[in-house]
């Protein structure tokens, strides 16, 4: 963690902010705040330089054009790559998740990604829209993933990453696995926004970013009710 406060950077909200993506930043800040951890949230627009010294970076979803533009600008800027090399945490959703890979498909063509995760994305046979649930990689120690997805892409994982979850409802990467992670980098197709339905995942990111091995629990009654309600809604 930086010396004075936990610094959370939301990357390019002007380009990538579609499905309540601001929520992930608000939730992380609120949960850190509730533990007495000072937080600084920074929204960096695509015409600004990306600071490379923050603790946690967020990338949201977006349309094809802005996604391609964001990739080009992030590769030119280089700030995120330096931050990742320093060990910063990255949490990426949907188009932002695709960006972390080697390439993605937008506007009918393949674009180079940021090459931070060993994966690539192409166009699927149909748009994946609906509830997305799955069992999360046990090494992460999290309860099942609960979310909503809306994307046209399919993502193929290489040996350098692990799937975030095995899909029980929805499509995710390819109908079988969903999302990916390696070290402090985590990507998912789930929005809702993702962390509103998965508070334990928010706390995992906070532990990664602060280095704390334990965070005191918070009252998650409403989030638990929401998770339960969604679980019942998708049950066969």
């Amino acid at each position, binding site marked *: 963690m930086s010396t004075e406060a936990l610094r959370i950077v939301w990357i390019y909200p002007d380009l990538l902010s579609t499905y309540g993506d601001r929520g992930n930043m*608000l939730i992380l800040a609120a949960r850190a705040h509730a533990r007495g951890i000072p937080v600084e949230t920074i929204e960096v627009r695509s015409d600004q330089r990306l600071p490379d010294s923050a603790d946690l970076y967020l990338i949201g979803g977006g349309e094809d054009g802005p996604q391609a533009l964001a990739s080009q600008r992030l590769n030119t800027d280089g700030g995120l790559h330096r931050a990742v090399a320093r060990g910063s945490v990255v949490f990426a959703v949907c188009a932002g998740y695709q960006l972390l890979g080697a390439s993605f498909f937008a506007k009918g063509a393949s674009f180079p990604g940021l090459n931070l995760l060993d994966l690539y994305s192409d166009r699927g046979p149909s748009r994946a*829209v609906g509830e997305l649930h799955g069992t999360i990689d046990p090494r992460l120690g999290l309860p099942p993933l609960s979310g909503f997805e809306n994307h046209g892409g399919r993502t193929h994982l290489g040996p350098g990453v692990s799937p975030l979850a095995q899909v029980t409802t929805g499509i995710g990467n390819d109908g079988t696995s969903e999302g990916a992670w390696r070290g402090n980098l985590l990507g998912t197709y789930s929005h809702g926004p993702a962390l509103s339905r998965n508070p334990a995942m928010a706390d995992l990111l906070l532990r990664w970013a602060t280095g704390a091995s334990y965070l005191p629990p918070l009252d998650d009654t409403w989030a638990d009710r929401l998770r339960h309600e969604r679980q019942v809604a998708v049950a066969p």
Partner: protein
Amino acid sequence: MPLRAKVASSVSRTAAALSRAAGRGDGSVIGGWIGLKIDPELLTHLAAGRSVALISGTNGKTTTTKLTVAALEGVGRVATNAFGANMPTGHTSALAKAGATPYAVLEVDEHYLARVLEETRPRAVALLNLSRDQLDRAKEVAMMAQMWREALANHPDVHVVANADDPMVTWAAMRSPAVTWFSAGQRWHDDSWVCPECGGAIERAGGDWRCTNCPLRRPRPHWVVEEDGVVDPTGAWHQVKLQLPGTVNIGNAATALAVAAQFGVRPADAVLRLSSVTSVAGRYAQVERDGRLIRLLLAKNPASWLEAFDMAEAAPTLLSINARDPDGLDTSWLFDVDFSPLYGRRVLITGDRAYDLAVRLQVNGIPFEHVTTFADALEAVPPGRLEVIANYTAFQDIRAELDRVN
């Protein structure tokens, strides 16, 4: 009108009447659907010979349509799709039902603007705004602006009345030969930070905006909302006395006056007629029940929630959220809305997706109470004003509890 169109029109009216008689709704979709089956060009035939205005945009369509009808009724009879059935079936049904009228004012779903332009050959089209709405099935904002731009390019003869405060609308309309620009202020900016022309950053200062990278900038508006009135292109200010709340409705009134001016109606004459509009398909309706004065506000997407907060008085407020098909299944937009204007008010929540709302309000730091029914909400608040803000089907549910108030 060709014989086939006459038959189609007559069958369409009958089917709509049968549907109403059978209690199947207002018949405004089924009648048009059958009419178009018999004669696919029925809408074209029904529109021929009328002076038509189209009203489209993400928010404010129904209200602006109703205000425009009120403004035009001073000069002649007006056909309109008052039930909010805003796709070609609804237009067909409305025109068939109205019989011959000199004027028609039609609310048009954003996705259907190209087709309805083609089929109704309007004299004027009003473009209100574009923002995110039901993204699980609707087109994204930039794509919608592109569709509008292409549609208008095929109709250079149409007079466009467009919102100068919305960069996406401006870009869609600016190539048209005849544009009247209006300015009504815009609270929601989160779908227009990126220039639709070049991808540069849009910069805003006060009410003005411009692209930092290309010449796209806010056009000088001809009609401007000022205080509780509207300044017309001659510089004259007209007080707008509405029975509808909120600054946004003064903006809708300005748009209605600008459209009416294209039909030769002077704003000084039209403005008085606007106060005849009291509620719009239950929206803004006020109902008294057990000593509670209930006002219904519909808010379907982030931009319209911001406007609803502006309209609601500082009174106990019930928020109701569903995510059924007409609402869109995705509730993530709740996090695009900043609920802090509700801070300090007593907030109750209900609806199918109340838990999504609960988590959102918790993150927003706003205390709330969860109630499972509308009746429980009424019981929980003291006599006096109760503001109700709900999204589409949640609104209809509560409206049904209040005996389909209009």
